[in-house]
């Protein structure tokens, strides 16, 4: 059975849901052309601004979070918007639309005032862009100048700025890129909806401090002996962005482009299930290259085939009814830990986790095999989480 990976987002047909996010990956037409050749359906060009906007970058601007032997499970950047202003981005858009009429070319913009936002929209529209994303959400550098997440953290500023943009747009859909750094994201989503914008992109990076050089007492990345807070991205932020997408999807009926830690086809499926219709990737592509698109599309195709589904569309939002308020979760459901002693390797990390972080329900016999006292086990599942053996501990209904 052949599966259809194409899906519509904000009225535009994408050949698959995978889009390169506004980032260093999309800072010139040559890079985007290679990404299109590799199989990406779309790209959002790196955030641009009017010519008079001064963009001065600092270096180094990237610092990875390594965990044990895995490199860059998370990434901090203190990059800013593109040094390439609207005049150059217009050219990129024209060039790419001419060479790749079937691909979707988006642009990301940021402005200081109404006039900037509207100029950017008009010029990009004239250049033939397919959609425009507005960054109301960069957590570092820009907020100091009243831009970035300063807008996205205030529902009134969000709605007003989005209206300006929408006013200027004759044809292209507008997506507002939101920040997770708010107490009430649905409230912000409602403001976006009221503005008349067409879609929401969620989320921008999470403000962070990725680590400190403990010999020299300077956080990373070290820029001439100092550092600054930055934006956190990559696999480590996926649980946060997934939550944000689900919250928005449950709050407003708007198309959502998800971004934030999408690394594998499984992540892609999860975001679709939580209501996204478009999936943006940056950090994973920065780490492994544009070629990861093959894993993403192949994995998604095989998954759909296995599920007997013929299109991506069928997945959108399927998990949403299964996310409820905590108070609505069943108090009657009482699982219990079941340990398969055939495959147990007697490491007893389940015993330690239960003893020091649970309910002292696991005991060890003289052979060091763990046994669950079902009277004491509350079914918290910490033991199953720490067990290193494939499917050795399962949580079963009582």
């Amino acid at each position, binding site marked *: 059975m052949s599966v259809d990976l194409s899906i519509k987002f904000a009225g535009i047909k994408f050949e698959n849901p995978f889009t390169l996010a506004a980032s260093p990956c999309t800072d010139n037409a040559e890079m985007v052309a290679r990404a299109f050749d590799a199989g990406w359906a779309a790209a959002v060009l790196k955030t641009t601004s009017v010519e008079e906007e001064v963009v001065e970058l600092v270096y180094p601007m990237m610092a990875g979070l390594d965990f044990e*032997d895995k490199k860059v499970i998370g990434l901090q950047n203190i990059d800013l918007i593109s040094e390439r202003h609207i005049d150059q981005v217009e050219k990129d858009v024209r060039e790419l639309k001419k060479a790749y009429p079937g691909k979707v070319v988006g642009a990301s913009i940021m402005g200081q005032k109404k006039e900037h936002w509207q100029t950017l929209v008009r010029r990009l529209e004239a250049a033939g862009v397919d959609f425009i994303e507005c960054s109301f959400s960069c957590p570092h550098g820009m907020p100091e100048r009243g831009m970035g997440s300063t807008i996205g953290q205030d529902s009134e500023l969000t709605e007003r700025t989005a209206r300006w943009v929408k006013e200027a747009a004759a044809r292209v859909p507008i997506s507002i890129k939101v920040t997770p750094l708010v107490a009430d994201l649905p409230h912000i989503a409602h403001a976006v909806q009221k503005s008349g914008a067409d879609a929401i992109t969620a989320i921008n990076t999470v403000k962070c401090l990725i680590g400190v050089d403990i010999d020299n007492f300077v956080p990373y990345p070290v820029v001439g002996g100092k550092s600054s807070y930055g934006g956190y991205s990559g696999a480590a932020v996926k649980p946060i962005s997934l939550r944000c997408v689900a919250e928005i999807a449950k709050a407003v009926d708007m198309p959502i482009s998800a971004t934030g830690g999408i690394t594998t086809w499984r992540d892609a499926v999860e975001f679709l299930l939580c209501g996204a219709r478009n999936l943006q990737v940056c950090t994973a592509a920065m780490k492994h290259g544009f070629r990861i698109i*093959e894993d993403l599309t192949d*994995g998604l195709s095989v998954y759909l085939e296995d599920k007997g589904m013929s299109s991506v569309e069928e997945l959108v939002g399927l998990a949403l009814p299964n996310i409820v308020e905590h108070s609505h979760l069943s108090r009657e459901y009482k699982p219990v830990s079941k340990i398969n002693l055939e495959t147990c390797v007697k490491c007893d990390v389940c015993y330690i986790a239960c003893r020091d972080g649970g309910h002292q329900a696991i005991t060890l016999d003289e052979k060091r095999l763990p046994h669950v006292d079902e009277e004491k086990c509350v079914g918290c599942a910490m033991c199953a989480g720490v067990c290193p053996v*494939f499917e050795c501990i399962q949580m079963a209904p009582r």
Partner: protein
Amino acid sequence: MAGRQTPDTLDMPTRVSTMEEVDRGLKPHLALAEAGRCIFCHDAPCVKGCPVGVDIPGFIRRISQRNMVGAARLIRQANPFGAVCARVCPSEAQCEKGCTSAGLSEPVAIACLQRYAMDQEMARGIRPVAAAEPTGRKVAVIGGGPAGLACSLALASAGEAVTVYDSSPEPGGVMRYGIPSYRLPREVLNQEIDWILSAGVRFVPNTVVGRDVAMADLLREYDAVFIGAGLGEPAVPHIPGADAAGVISAYAFLRAAGEPDEDVRRQAVGEVVAQPLGRVVVLGGGNVAVDAACTALRLGAESVAIAYRRTRGEMPAWAEEVEFAEEEGVNLVFLLSPAEVLQADGKARGVRMTKMRLADDDASGRPRPVPSGEPDVTIEADTVVLAFGQAPNESVFSSLPSLARSDAGMIAVDAETGATSVAGVFAGGDAVNGGTTVVQAVGEGLRTAEGIRAYLDSATPARN
């Protein structure tokens, strides 16, 4: 970085009491851990080391993302015998040889990962080949081994009508009649072959071209012919006394031992060599010698020795296979060349061996063994297995006398297209390369299928 993961294997001594596969594969969590060792380096030397160019980083990445079916399909795109080759490829000398991870610790266990992906795919069934629009053209394939079957699949999936003629009752060639089942289980082989035949390839068993059908008839009836007939009868140097009962070629021995059913196997082996095997000596130093030695152990030999005329360093057998044999208890003796098979009542009782020393390099670049002048020694043996390699397949040349030979006496072909000196006749595999690996034969079969299609397009336009 974590060290290389290893698959489970059957323990000694259980392992030598059965023809069951020794390698039991990687456990799921170890497969994921091993896939995690791939750096996804830019250069991918592994792909360059693979004779069929499997997208190795691509399939490993799919494994690490738990897309096992996607991994297997990616492998199968480049290699129709992906499951066979995962088991029989000398991966340490091919893909794994250049692995970038070796710069950090050890090479990624690529063959084990390929095996893992293929096992997952086979458990759910191989996706059938998509039917192609028939071109109306016909191709005869002589020999249903790895080259012939790979070529057949590539042709059939492009809509050519393929008929395979094979001298044996079952398809598979060296994979079925040469490689022991403890290295390559017949269920694995059968599943890949059935999948290839189901693409519309017709198999004609027990048919020798030149004996049962005339080459001239094939050339007349078909639009092109592919010769993948493998090698011919073993090259047996004249050894006095080699007519004794208990002396057998490794080729015949492995063929009989390849019978999957235990009772049939016992009978087949009994037909070619005296039973019980008793003390066995294998003469030779290649992979076939090693396979014969390890097979003899499994068939109840009292003891097994391999006697080779050079030293360990010159053995053509892969180091990994030699170590495997030693683990199982095969005794290796070096610098001995057979002078005479000693007989008692027409039955072998041992081999008188001339002691050798290494002299200057010969044409093959290996030191030449010459008699050392020391007195001969006797190795006592009830069964003597001759594993001196195979010769060119003479039946092919006699059936088509105009077929040009290479310097090595094999079929001469154009390296790119596989075209022989006879128009419309192509060749690949051992019959051309003199006997290398299954994967090399597969690669030649696939490449030659392209050559055949290009020839057909120019010589015989599609009929519909």
